[in-house]
């Protein structure tokens, strides 16, 4: 094992990336420990920690259903399934990203005193978020069972969606956590952005509802989270069967399972993989100065 660190390796864009990847691979035990630590903090603190983590999305789903279900329920029968399929996907992203963003700064004593692939800090936060997300899917499947809601073969795409979203969160997490070392406003700014971003994603309202407003529907259309969330909605919620007679629409109380729209989904997968690469390269390049700046 031999490591050469040269000031020159910083001069090329990709310098140091290959050794950094090897370094990450050699520290799989550390990654495991960091994920376990993160999960322990979440679940160990209270006796029924798992229950609490399921309670939160369940409660939000009920609140949104109570408020928006009455407004949009006519278009989206079985509204709770509609809300929850988007909400869980959003929660994974929206709660994990801020934690990943602060992860390098929050672990300054590790970063300063020991040499290890620091990219594992945001990555482990993202992966423990993934574990939580997978657990929370139990809620959604439970709800589907309660409603006797049909699921189709498109469910086979679920692992693909989860994988793409994980890459998206890790990529953005790497990017933002390294920038946050130098500009601490990143974490504050992110909080605001996420609030707006949530409402710019069709989770608690149906997208068709926004058609009157040109600007809003454009924003929703170019929002990558829309691409992702709608894919989740397609495989879990599908489309309600309806009869159109004149201006009136009558739902038949049944659903047709649908496949996600391929273009937005492929777009999201491509974006996630690109972000993962850009995030990692940026992180590795900036990490040279972490010890001095953190």
């Amino acid at each position, binding site marked *: *094992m*031999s*490591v*050469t*660190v*040269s*000031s*020159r*390796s*910083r001069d090329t864009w990709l310098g140091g990336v290959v050794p950094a990847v090897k*370094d990450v691979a*050699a*520290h799989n*035990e*550390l990654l*495991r*420990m960091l994920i376990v630590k993160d999960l322990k903090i979440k679940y160990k603190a209270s006796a029924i920690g798992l229950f609490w983590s399921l309670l939160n999305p369940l409660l939000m789903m009920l609140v949104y259903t109570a408020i928006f279900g009455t407004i949009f329920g006519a278009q989206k029968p079985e509204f709770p399934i509609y809300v929850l399929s988007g909400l869980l996907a959003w929660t994974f992203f929206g709660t994990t990203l801020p934690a990943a963003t602060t992860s390098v700064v929050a672990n300054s*004593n*590790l970063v*300063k*005193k*020991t*040499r*290890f692939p620091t990219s594992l800090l945001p990555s482990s936060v993202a992966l423990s978020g993934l574990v939580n997300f997978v657990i929370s899917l139990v809620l959604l499947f439970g709800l589907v069972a309660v409603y006797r809601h049909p699921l189709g073969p498109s469910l086979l795409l679920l692992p693909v969606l989860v994988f793409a979203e994980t890459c998206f969160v890790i990529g953005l997490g790497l990017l933002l956590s390294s920038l946050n070392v130098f*500009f*601490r*406003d*990143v974490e504050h*700014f992110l909080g605001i952005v996420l609030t707006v971003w949530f409402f710019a994603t069709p989770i608690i309202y149906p997208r068709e509802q926004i058609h009157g407003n040109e600007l809003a529907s454009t924003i929703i259309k170019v929002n990558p989270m829309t691409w992702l969330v709608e894919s989740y909605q397609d495989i879990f919620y599908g489309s309600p069967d309806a009869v159109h007679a004149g201006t009136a629409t009558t739902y038949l109380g049944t659903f047709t399972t649908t496949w996600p729209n391929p273009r937005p989904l492929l777009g999201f997968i491509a974006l996630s993989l690109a972000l993962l690469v850009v995030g990692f390269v940026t992180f590795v390049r900036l990490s*040279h100065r972490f*010890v*001095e700046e953190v």
Partner: protein
Amino acid sequence: MPNAIELEGVTKSFKVFHRRHSTLKETLLRRRRAVFEQVTVLDHVSLDIPEGQALGIIGRNGAGKSTMLKVIAGLMTPDEGTVTVRGRVSTLLELGAGFQGEYSGRENVYLYSALMGLSRRFIDERFDEIVEFSGIENYIDNPVKTYSSGMYARLAFAVAVHVDPDILIIDEVLAVGDRDFQRKCFARAADLRRRGKTIVLVSHDLESVRRICDRAVWLDGGKLLADGKPQDVAQGYVASVTERSIKAGFDDDQAHLEDVRVLDASGAPVASIKTDEPAIVSFRISTPVAMGAAHLVVRWVAENGTIMASSSTIHDGPVSVPAGGADFACHFDRMPLVPDSYRIEVVALDPETSELLHPIHDTVLVAVLGKPVEGMVSVASRWETGGDSRVRSAGGGGVDASSRE
């Protein structure tokens, strides 16, 4: 013998900011220009350390020793030059590098080895040996934040030497721990060397450098001033340090600290003061020759060794003493210490290196009297409650429980 570590023209400098951009807005707008000074900490250092060598790095504070270790450990990237390291590096930078206070000793052992990229099985096999070496079996499942600094250092050292490193990098850790543990550390270091491992040690304690190392370098101002046998390099270093202290005149044979006393506000010597009362610490430095610069520090030290209060000349500039000597008095406007007994320490420091110029001969004990309070300092306070209820100031000053809202 191949080299374990090669430094080639390594230069590292830091920007010392007097005013800096800390937010995105400031950086983007550049309204206020960042003001900084470029400080070169390592200045084209080249050094080959062959496998199996134990190298000691000595030098004053701020000479660049720690930066050099961080560059070797891969924590910092040099601005210029290259660093080549062959083999697995185990680092002990500062006390218990990377230990997490909330984690138990056991968890920290595993975390440390994971940080080094070792597998769980690897450390499982060595765990008992590590705990035995550290001698803290009974505390291994307690959070390390409850450890004393000695226990902390023991565990940190135990892990670092048991992860089977090819290169062990140690920064000033042997100073902590009792004699017995130090002896164990020396034995372990000797053992590592017998097995052909490389050791790099930074220490102010020249004795441990002499005992462990077979080569020493003297770093000053980011450059290597000397390189050779530890005895020779240490001798050169000591000579330069003593030369400076003789210049300052604060040699032990010549200068003496005398008559350390605590006086009350009227100037009368006392053995006790009351909480919140003023106090004066007076002492005399007598010297046959005039002395150059030194910093004087007066400390109030609690029984457990914590410095509760201090006053020094560091902010006002160093003092000099004329031939014959001089009297000094340090006025403390009020001492808000809780009732207990405290030791007064007077020390003289080299203004450049902050090294002790004078052994502490003379300490006095002083008692602080008053109403007993919990905590470390006595703070003026009063109580209030809302509504119609009154705090009864008589009868112990308690709040009437029935009227609490």
